[in-house]
């Protein structure tokens, strides 16, 4: 019988870890991930999580230790965010091309400076081009469920890539909900045999050089390097179908179906759409409901999987709308807009869908994106349907 409990997003993630039975975990605390690290430590101390917990001196070591553990065949977990993730970057970039199926919670946080310890998605968006799979959750239950699914996705033989399960700092990390805890036996059966180091290993029984010098300007180096880069891109593309399939399997077994790549909310006859990512989507859906009641033909598209980029799913969802407004919780400094917006522009151009689009940036450094903000987003997006001019970015919390 599945147990119910009341907990916040960080505890939900930790329960997802417990049920996935990793062999080794290494975590270094950083706000707003810290309580997740504490739950993990507590579960190990109480014998609920039977994993080796490595105490290390910082995030660079956290991920380096886990790379070694994965190369030795261990299922592994860590969690980080913000400045901690910045310190982790060197091994972080190295993990995907080694094809190590490490799972990490990113409790997303805004970037410093100015000094802030609050939520935002600047950290996750900054590392979106590193070969990690990125999935954004909307509720505590989805965090727990996605953490478990993440292992099955990461360890799928057609994927073999590390996965970030992202949840918004503050709003999801500390927001308390009732969640359902799946049975351990069910999760064991769902995950099956662990599948970590069949392809690359530190193992005296099968000696190999791991990550040998490759590239340069002569010999076979350059073409080898290209081969591995293309292989990584292939794994990312394979992940799209795998993520969909594993979400379907999860729904069939546990009764909770999530949109694996993108969720279409009241999009069926929508003439224009707003696009969201992460926990802001709840307020967005409430605002869409209110606008629909007032006769506005608006729908909402929520992105769950941002890496790999779900191009076909976006095509299916947006091909019939006449305008989009995209709400980001981070900044693309080079483009003076939000990064999700900027990538949607690329997708629309690639798909030959020529419609007006406008970028909204909100919720930076822990700011709330309220239903009122979304009413403005909806109003503005409705107004641009017949515009040909490029539109300036709108900063939602500017006057708060």
């Amino acid at each position, binding site marked *: 019988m599945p147990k119910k409990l009341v907990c916040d997003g960080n505890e939900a993630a930790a329960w997802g870890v417990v049920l996935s039975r990793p062999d080794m975990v290494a975590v270094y605390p950083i706000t707003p991930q810290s309580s997740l690290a504490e739950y993990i430590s507590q579960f190990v101390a109480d014998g609920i999580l039977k994993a080796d917990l490595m105490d290390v001196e910082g995030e660079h070591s956290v991920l380096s230790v886990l790379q070694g553990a994965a190369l030795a065949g261990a299922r592994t977990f860590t969690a980080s965010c913000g400045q901690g993730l910045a310190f982790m970057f060197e091994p972080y970039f190295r993990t995907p*091309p*080694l*094809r190590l199926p490490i799972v990490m919670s990113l409790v997303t946080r805004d970037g410093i400076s100015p000094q802030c310890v609050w939520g935002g998605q600047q950290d996750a968006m900054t590392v979106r081009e590193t070969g990690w799979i990125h999935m954004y959750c909307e509720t505590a239950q989805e965090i727990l469920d996605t953490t478990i699914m993440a292992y099955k996705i990461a360890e799928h033989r057609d994927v*073999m890539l590390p996965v970030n399960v992202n949840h918004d700092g503050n709003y999801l990390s500390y927001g308390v909900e009732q969640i359902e805890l799946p049975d351990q036996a069910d999760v064991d059966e769902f995950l099956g045999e662990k599948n970590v180091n*069949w*392809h*690359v*290993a530190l193992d*005296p*029984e*099968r*000696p*190999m*050089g*791991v*990550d*040998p*010098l*490759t590239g*340069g300007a*002569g*010999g*076979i*180096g350059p073409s*080898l390097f290209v*081969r*591995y880069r*293309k*292989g990584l891109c*292939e*794994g990312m593309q394979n992940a799209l179908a795998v993520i969909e399939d594993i979400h379907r399997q999860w729904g069939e077994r546990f009764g909770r179906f999530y949109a694996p790549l993108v969720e279409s909310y009241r999009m069926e006859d929508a003439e224009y759409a707003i696009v969201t990512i992460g926990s802001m989507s709840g307020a967005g859906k409430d605002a869409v409901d209110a606008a629909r009641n007032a006769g506005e033909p608006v729908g909402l598209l929520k992105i769950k999987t941002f890496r790999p980029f779900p191009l076909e799913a976006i095509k299916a969802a947006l091909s019939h709308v006449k305008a989009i407004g995209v709400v980001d919780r981070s900044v693309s400094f080079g483009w003076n807009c939000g990064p999700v917006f900027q990538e949607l522009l690329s997708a629309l151009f690639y798909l030959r869908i020529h419609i007006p689009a406008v970028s909204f940036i909100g919720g930076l450094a822990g700011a709330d994106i309220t239903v009122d903000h979304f009413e403005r987003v909806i109003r503005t997006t409705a107004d641009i349907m017949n515009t040909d001019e490029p539109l300036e970015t709108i900063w939602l919390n500017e006057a708060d």
Partner: protein
Amino acid sequence: MKKQAKKPFDTSKIPDNLCPIATVHAELKTGDWRAERPVVDREKCVKCATCWVYCPTQCIQEKPNWFEADLTICKGCGVCAHECPHRAISMIEEAEDD
């Protein structure tokens, strides 16, 4: 020292674009990078193997009465010359026409 007797890992079932691993020595000839090369004075060499221990590319080979670097691999870093307790190794510039 126990020699590694295990057979190389069978990579035939692993996609060749999956992950950078090696089970045989690479074709890459790091000797191409060399600006200076180590020359061993065979009179001074006592086969203490200090150069063999320190060489970062592990390219030192054992000869009847001396050790010397495999010049297809030796990068010319000079660690062996620096560490040789008998000063039997000197680094000389690669001649352009050599």
